């Protein structure tokens, strides 16, 4: 028996394009488009919408980064531009996600460095960029203004807006033409509420990517999986305030006890396993962008996605 649910849905996930080519006022060598799904993944019909993409995460202050990655990278970890260039060339992720971890240090005030770092990374890679700024309401306004300004025209995806602090990020995105990650703590209602708040201060839906928050395997991942499914259901049922593509990053994967206490000789293998087995299911649950930090995770994750979403050249069913 084959189940076909395709015809039942009235809604679809909107599409979002990240990055801007020269012609569109940016400097990216490629852009990516996500979303467009008209069905649940793999329920009796071929996948619809754009294929899931892989974002490689890096940062500008490696002391706040998981040790398995910094050890693997060696000196590269001290220069985010080089980190981005090298990863893009060697591992071919679809996007680079830069965390401005320096802004999360106590007493941060070097706002000029935000501009420099963003500009340097933009120069070092032609991939579309996701930029994560501060997470302190006191700093947000200035940090996001700098990010927005430094990347003007590049159609960056910037994060992370939360219900408690979304105005500065949205303001920067609207002023400089960027997109926003809207994160809520594993709850469909809270996800929707934040999207409404953003809409009501003027950020259109096609510039929002939902981050439903992803717990590491065994640390809440199953809740995240379920919420992603529910968000997708809502979108397919026609709820426009939830009809945005999703980004998933099991950020804690490399800091869980099982990885921290792993035997040094097997650390790379176990790091990859923890990232891979969270991010591959996340694509099935409905995530359009999945994020990893260990470079070695990218290839097996790519192979997994290719296995589920054949014909990589076609960009899915879109």
């Amino acid at each position, binding site marked *: 028996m084959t189940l076909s649910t395709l015809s039942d849905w009235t809604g679809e996930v909107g599409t979002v394009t990240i990055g801007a080519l020269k012609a569109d006022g940016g400097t990216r060598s490629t852009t990516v488009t996500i979303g467009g799904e008209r069905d649940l993944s793999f329920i009796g019909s071929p996948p619809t919408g754009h294929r899931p993409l892989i974002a490689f995460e890096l940062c500008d202050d490696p002391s706040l980064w998981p040790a398995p990655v910094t050890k693997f990278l060696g000196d590269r970890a001290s220069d985010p531009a080089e980190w981005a260039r090298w990863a893009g060339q060697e591992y071919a992720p679809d996007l680079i996600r830069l965390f401005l971890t320096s802004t999360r240090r106590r007493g941060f005030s070097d706002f000029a460095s935000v501009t420099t770092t963003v500009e340097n990374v933009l120069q070092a890679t032609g991939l579309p960029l996701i930029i994560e700024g501060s997470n302190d309401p006191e700093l947000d306004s200035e940090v996001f203004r700098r990010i927005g300004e430094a990347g003007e025209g590049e159609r960056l995806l910037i994060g992370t807006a939360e*219900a*408690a602090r979304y*105005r500065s990020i949205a303001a920067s995105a609207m002023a400089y033409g960027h997109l926003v990650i809207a994160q809520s703590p594993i*709850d*469909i*209602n*809270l996800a*929707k*509420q934040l999207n*409404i*708040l953003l809409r*009501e*201060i*003027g950020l259109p839906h096609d510039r929002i990517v939902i981050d439903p928050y992803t717990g590491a395997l065994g640390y809440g991942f199953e809740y995240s999986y379920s919420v992603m499914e529910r968000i997708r259901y809502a979108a397919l049922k026609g709820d426009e*305030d939830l009809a945005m593509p999703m980004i998933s990053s099991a950020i804690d994967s490399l800091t869980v006890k099982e990885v921290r206490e792993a035997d040094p000789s097997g650390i790379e293998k176990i790091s990859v396993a923890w990232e891979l087995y969270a991010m591959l299911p996340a694509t099935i649950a409905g995530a359009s962008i999945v994020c990893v930090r260990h470079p070695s995770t990218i290839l097996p994750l790519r192979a997994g996605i290719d296995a589920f979403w054949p014909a990589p050249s076609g960009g899915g069913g879109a």
Partner: protein
Amino acid sequence: MPTVTFLPGFRKTEVKSGSTLLQAAQQAGIHMNVVCGGLGKCGKCTVYVKSGRYDFDCEKFGKFFSPEELDAGACLACQTSVLEDVRVLIPEESIVQEQKILIDVMGISTELNPAVWKYALTLSPPSLDDPSPDLTRLLWGIEKAGGPKEGDIYAPLEVIRRIPRVLRESGWKVTATVVLVPGGYRLIDIEKGDTSPACYGAAVDLGTTTVVVFIRNLIDGSIMGVASNYNRQISCGEDILSRVTFARKGGLKKLQSLAAESINAAITEAANKAGVDREHIYEVVVAGNTIMTHILMGIDPAYMIEEPYVPVVRRYLTAAAGRAGLEVGEDSGLFIFPAVSDFIGGDIIADILASGMAESEEISLLIDIGTNFEVVLGNRDWMFACAGAAGPALEGGEVLFGMRANAGAIEQISLDLETLTPAYRTIRHTKPKGLCGSGLIDLLAELLRACIIDRTGRINTAIDHERIRAGRQVPEFVVAWKEETGIGKDIVITENDVKALIMSKASILAACRTLMNQAGITRDEIAHIYFSGAFGNYISKENAIVIGLIPEVPVERITPIGNGAIEGANLVLLNRRKKKFLDEIARKIAYIELNAEPSFMDEYTGSCFLPHTDLSLFPTVEEMLGKCRMRRGVP
């Protein structure tokens, strides 16, 4: 024994050395605010010891006071022991204040079928030819006067003992009183002469906070007198849980007698106003929540507050009023409303009766809001009910400038959407001291209309306006400037206050929505929303919908029924046939345990938004808010 003198009234009382000032105050008949039940946690029972030796742990409880206050002798009455004669000043705010209590002289229309009859009889004295006993003679007289058959009337010993003297002293002209109780007819009184017009009953709403009494003439149904006062148990803890805790610590007897005292005081006041002799009150009908009625009947309420939350009794109760300590006719009947569960008590059954929803085919939603709320959905064929905690925010608790509905409380407020200047009305038209529930609901709706808060209640500090400021810890909006208030400081509402209010309203809306989902009912199918309780009478229906306290329905479908509990009690007092119906209602209700209902949490989170995450549930509110955003220049 040391003497405690309470200022400013100079009330004196003698206590054992080591007694607390709270005990002394209770003994002196002063009802102090004790929100925590005397555990030293709430800081509401502040007093100032002016002279004399006392023991108070400043280290432990000093946090409630400033150094200046401590210098002035500030301490907590519940934590201060008396060592010798002391003079104590009780500030006004530590005394239970007179509150805006709802007394409705409601137009009840019901058949008059009371359970009490008085028969004025002229009996022939016994003789050698007619030697039948006194009691038989009396009961025959009743039967002849149209009353129940002689053999159907039970006569208790206490009454029989009085019969021979009353008959002879009155020259065989007496008035006999008969009541109908579950066991049948019962002779409860015999009086000299004709007292038949003096036939009264009392309807009582025994609330956790207040007691309301109606005295009714049972011959024509008219209202003789009305009175209300505080439930004196407040001195043993303000909320119901602290009362049960008090009962558990051996305080049941005390709580029982305080409940009876509170009812007695209200009955006395109402009787005095009406010129009614309390002895002529033959039936007392009490509607109250399950814990209150347990306590009044001296039944241990302890097992209701712990898993699996079992009341001792659910069916209606009857007893001789004297056995509960009520000072009416010794053998008068006492009728206690049945309950559905520990959380859905007789007060809610009374609400249902008063609303008429159990007799109608149309679907109604009944909401009783207090610190705890109860919601009932249904019609004459089916009913769902649930209960929960809304938190004290809607009653002004846990809100920085929240207060009960006392004099000086802002009860209505609106904002000029251009200048953001508030226009408000206070209770008794005095200078504002704070905001009560209805004012807070108005304010929340107005802040939303003015786009000062977003839908999660966050204050937009980017707005450049003198009334919107960063606050000490969280942003706040100035409702009234220092100069215009009665407390010498700015009255503000903080972002935390707004959040507390949103959480309170969310639990009520989520409860409504959970019942609606359970029954498969949409808001269009709700023909009536009944608000029970004082709260419902004073709040703005429109604003209750704007903030999403209740589902959106056309406002004309919303009816405040006032104090449904007292109304229901009145109905039963006047029409005994309603008593059976109460049990029917109670049986019909399916109780939904919200904690066991998985969708409730989802509904709750969805409701923690103004008015709700699913905007399509509030179409007209949405239209209105859209216009407001346009006007404020927000896209």
